[in-house]
């Protein structure tokens, strides 16, 4: 569970607040997607929830940041890491640099947690299989393609089984099949009670998998609600976030009188089949 109230933040030596009076909550077992333009503060927010800001990056932070009912500021960084897994945006930077193989890399976070050796080995194998990187386990973590590295970065967090996972554009380097796989895994994790906050540009996948979607703009959450309602809002174009081609086609069809002017626009393929199909509204 994540609960943010009145969160404001400015980086060191800067005058302007990247986040200003932001409120957001994610319930246990829920997956909430956050969309926001380039530079909107998505990564900043992710690092705040994980406790990396201000402890590592400094700056001026205010407001309440609670994870599972505990203020993140009251935890040491290692206690915070046990509560929140952060999949960072650039997978290259998630690689520890301390390990020689992908296998050791995925196991790294578990090593100092008291989990028995045999269990670590089992969990690493299972997660590697789940993320389809089991054929890469003997490789150096640096001898990978960008997408493979991203899958390893995700695996190294999923293996920790933290109650909360914050994922900063975790599918940015992935092929379409891999992106779908990661969202399917997220759904499996939330079914088991994991709380997931995901920052993502792939609107079609958010529509299909998120329980709720929030828009980050001007340092705060400017809209929040059901995925289809939020993600079909034409203002997303104005906010530079963008819409799917299904939504754009729906709007264009409306403009030319080929679709009814009321009702929700389509965001995903099933929405669009219903919207445009023979049994649809027109």
């Amino acid at each position: 569970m994540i609960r943010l109230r009145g969160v404001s933040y400015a980086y060191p030596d800067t005058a302007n607040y990247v986040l200003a009076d932001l409120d957001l909550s994610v319930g246990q077992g829920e997956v909430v997607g956050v969309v926001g333009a380039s530079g909107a503060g998505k990564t900043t927010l992710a690092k705040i929830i994980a406790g990396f800001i201000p402890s590592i990056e400094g700056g001026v932070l205010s407001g309440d940041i609670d994870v599972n009912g505990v203020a993140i500021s009251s935890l040491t960084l290692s206690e915070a890491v046990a509560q929140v897994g952060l999949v960072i945006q650039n997978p290259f930077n998630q690689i520890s640099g301390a390990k020689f193989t992908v296998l050791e890399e995925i196991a790294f976070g578990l090593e100092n947690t008291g989990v028995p050796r045999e269990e670590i080995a089992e969990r690493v194998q299972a997660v590697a299989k789940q993320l389809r990187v089991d054929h890469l386990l003997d490789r150096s973590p640096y001898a990978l393609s960008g997408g493979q590295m991203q899958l390893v970065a995700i695996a190294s967090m999923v293996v920790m089984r933290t109650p909360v996972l914050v994922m900063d554009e975790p599918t940015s380097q992935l092929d379409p099949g891999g992106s779908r796989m990661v969202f399917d895994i997220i759904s499996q994790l939330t079914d088991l009670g994991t709380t997931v906050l995901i920052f993502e540009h792939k609107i079609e996948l958010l529509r299909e998998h998120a329980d709720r979607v929030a828009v980050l703009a001007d340092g705060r959450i400017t809209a929040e609600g059901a995925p289809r309602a939020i993600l079909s809002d034409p203002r997303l174009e104005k906010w530079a976030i963008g819409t799917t081609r299904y939504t754009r086609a729906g709007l264009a069809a409306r403009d030319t009188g080929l679709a009814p002017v009321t009702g929700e626009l389509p965001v995903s393929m099933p929405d669009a089949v219903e919207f445009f199909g023979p049994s649809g509204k027109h």
Partner: protein
Amino acid sequence: MDITFDQLRYTYASGVEALRGVSLAVPTGQRLAIVGQNGAGKTTLVRHLNGIFRPTSGTVRIGDWTTTDKQIAELSARVGYVFQNPDEQLFARTVRADVAFGPKNLGFDEQRASELVDAALARTALTREADAHPHHLSLSERKRVAIAAVLAMDTPIVVLDEPTTGQDERGVRMVASITNELAAEGRTVIAITHDMDFAAENFERVIVMAQGEVHADGEPGEVFSHTDALAKAAVEPPQLMRLARELGWRAHPLTVESFVAQLAKKPQ
């Protein structure tokens, strides 16, 4: 300046066979999108163009040059390469210094260099960030710095490794218009991408790679209709083509305009 890959094979020192015989000709001024599964060899392929990698066997030609005869510095006058990971490409303390490195290194006189830098910063909407430290920018902003650094080199061939990754809608549209402008000036643009809508809307040719080989090659409308070959490469067609197929249409609309035009033809 035409590009040819002839039976290109590349095996990493660790023994991974990343390219297993790629033959491909890219004529001057073409907009070519390379798509395909993670680990297919896309990055390995394009890194042969500016000499970061040398063929294990086979040849790569750029105009009248064979890459093995040339130094990286020489090749960089012909090929600009935007790295997949901007943090691997950028090294300077200010955005401007990063963007100015290429033109300086290519020996352009100061005035031309500074004109190119200003134009590249403006084109990528980074003028205001010129004096910022790249580490104080967000990742998508850093990716735009990496793109600007290559635009400022004014090369006849521009290679973009996942240029839209992490970009918001404004950024994706920016990359699309840069692509089209470069091609209009007669430059060759090769972009690797996992965004099939971006590929379908902005490129005249698409190749699909899987396991070190090219599995499909042609116009987007045609390539994206080979659903079996695509599935093997973990690729799916662009959104509106998937929708048209689901609706049972025979047409393959690549753009919103062509989708709506097709819709207008259907009996209501």
